[in-house]
Each structure stands twice: as structure tokens, then as C-alpha cells.
């Protein structure tokens, strides 16, 4: 289980395993979260900054649910010709509504999430992406989210 990510030491792994949720809401939350890990507040802050800088964490903080904010996150897929892939990725990623975008090994080879303040804006952004790229955008909005509780083990 430890073949990859050799740059993560025991403390990094403990932080990642302990803090994928439940970060406290209190005056000195880093101090409160650091104590059970045997770290000081300053050490935890320094470690988190380093994990973010190194790209081990994509972010640290609250995960907002767009639907609960009145917005919508729509998964969309496109079939992008191989010789235009990088160009189209740039066009798609330029939209601030595109929260993530993945290349996948399928005829539908580009999959991205369009998150916007309103469902109308999310749909409009899909249309604008289709217009900008000249490619069909298949919207696959979520109809239901099944409950889950995953914590990745570092």
C-alpha cells in the first residue's frame, strides 16, 4: 500500500488519514486538530501548507455542496479529436464554472463538472462550451446522490 507517494512521511500520512473531515469549528482549530496527532499548532499548519504546495492536497477547508447553495453541478462529457485535445482542454478549463476536468480512456474522452450559482447558468455554460469548442457536450446531471462515507487511506 506504500509503493507510491514516497515523499509522504509517517506524519503526513497521519494528517491525511485523520483530517479528511471533522476539522473543528472553534477559535484555534489547528491547535485542536494537532493535539491528538502529537503535533503543535505551528507544525500542523506548516505540514498542511507543504502538502498543498506539493499537490498532495488539492485543498483544505470546507467542501460546499452547490445544490444547497441554490446552484447546480452538472457532469458533462465530450468526444474530443486527439489532435485537438490540448486545445479543447484549454478552452473548457478557461470557464470558471468548470470545477474539474478529467481525460478518460473512452470514446467520450473528456469529462468535466460544470458548477454554477444557478441551474440555468450551469446549462448556459454547457452551451457556451459547445459553442467555443464546436463539439457536442453531453450533460449528465445527477438525479440522485447516494450516501457514502469514503476516507482514502494514505
Amino acid at each position: 500500500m506504500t509503493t507510491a507517494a514516497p515523499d509522504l512521511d509517517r506524519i503526513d500520512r497521519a494528517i491525511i488519514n485523520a483530517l479528511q473531515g471533522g476539522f473543528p469549528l472553534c477559535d484555534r482549530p489547528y491547535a485542536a486538530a494537532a493535539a491528538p496527532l502529537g503535533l503543535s499548532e505551528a507544525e500542523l499548519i506548516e505540514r498542511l501548507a507543504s502538502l498543498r504546495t506539493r499537490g498532495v492536497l488539492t485543498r483544505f477547508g470546507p467542501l460546499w455542496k452547490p445544490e444547497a447553495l441554490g446552484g447546480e453541478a452538472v457532469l458533462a462529457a465530450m468526444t474530443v479529436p486527439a489532435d485537438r485535445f490540448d486545445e479543447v482542454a484549454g478552452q473548457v478549463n478557461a470557464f470558471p464554472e468548470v470545477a474539474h476536468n478529467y481525460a478518460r480512456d473512452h470514446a467520450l474522452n473528456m469529462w468535466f463538472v460544470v458548477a454554477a450559482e444557478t441551474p440555468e447558468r450551469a446549462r448556459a455554460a454547457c452551451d457556451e462550451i459547445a459553442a467555443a469548442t464546436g463539439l457536442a457536450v453531453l450533460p449528465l446531471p445527477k438525479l440522485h446522490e447516494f450516501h457514502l462515507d469514503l476516507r482514502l487511506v494514505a
Partner: protein
Amino acid sequence: MMTQPILLDATDRAIVTATQDGLPLVPDPYGAVADRVGTTTEDVLARMARMLAAGVIRRIGAVPNHYRLGFRANGMTVWDVDDARVMALGEAVGALPFVSHCYLRPRLPEVWPYNLFAMVHGHDRDEAEAQAAEIRALLGDACRGGEILYSTKILKKTGLRLRMASALGG
């Protein structure tokens, strides 16, 4: 875990905007957010606790990059599941410990036959395929087919960026 819709006011939305890039890495991060949105630390804590309880905030903490943790085989498994049984089976799939997201989505005639999506994460493709096989076994005769779409590259991962300008009055 149903989300109760709650009304968010301008201060709540200012907190969303102030934390979309993450929580400040300073000893008093909620105080720093309070300064940015023009309120007190106590108010930020109370509002965030309320939004966490209501599901507006899914969770507070670290969001790892799967690849950097050694999960190199990240597969979107997609399944064509009998509509009459997909709600119960989706709950069962979502409860599998290795499934990180599980959604019901529309089929698109002629183009896309799959209605159940479950993300799996393996250190290699053998591990991801074993996870997919477990899902397939659980779906049983309600499943007419499926595929795994592996991600081959993260092209963008910034997380949510909502335009809150209207709610902030400019």
C-alpha cells in the same frame, strides 16, 4: 443524509466566497474569514456550524489528490441498472467502502446507456477491476451491462467556484 434546504443570507454567501480556495492556514482561520466578510469569529463559527448541519457544507478538512496518494487507477464505473431497482441498489453500492461517489444520472438514447455511476480507486487497475467486479456482483441480474472509464489525466481540479456577485450586491 437528506439536505434540508436552508436560506443563506449575504453573510453566509460571503463566507462561501471567502473559503472557496480553502481555509486560511493561520492559527485563527475563522477569525481571518470573519475579518474578510465583516463579522465576528463567533458569527462565522455559528453560521458554518449551521451550514454543516444542514449539509450545505459536506465536510471540513483535507481533500487529497488521489494520484499523489498512490491511487493511480481511478475508475468511473458506469452501469445500466433496472430502473425499478436502481434506488435500492445505488444505496448498497454507495455503502461499499471503496466507492467515493455514487450517483443516479440520465441515460441518453443512442449515446449513453448507463444510469448508475460509482467512482472506484485502486493502486493499480487490478485492484480497481476487483472493486468493479464486486459492484457487478452486487447488482446481479438487475444490471444489463457496465464499463470502467479510467481517468488518464487530471486536466483541472479547482473545486467549486461559484459566482456570488449577485448575492454580494456587486
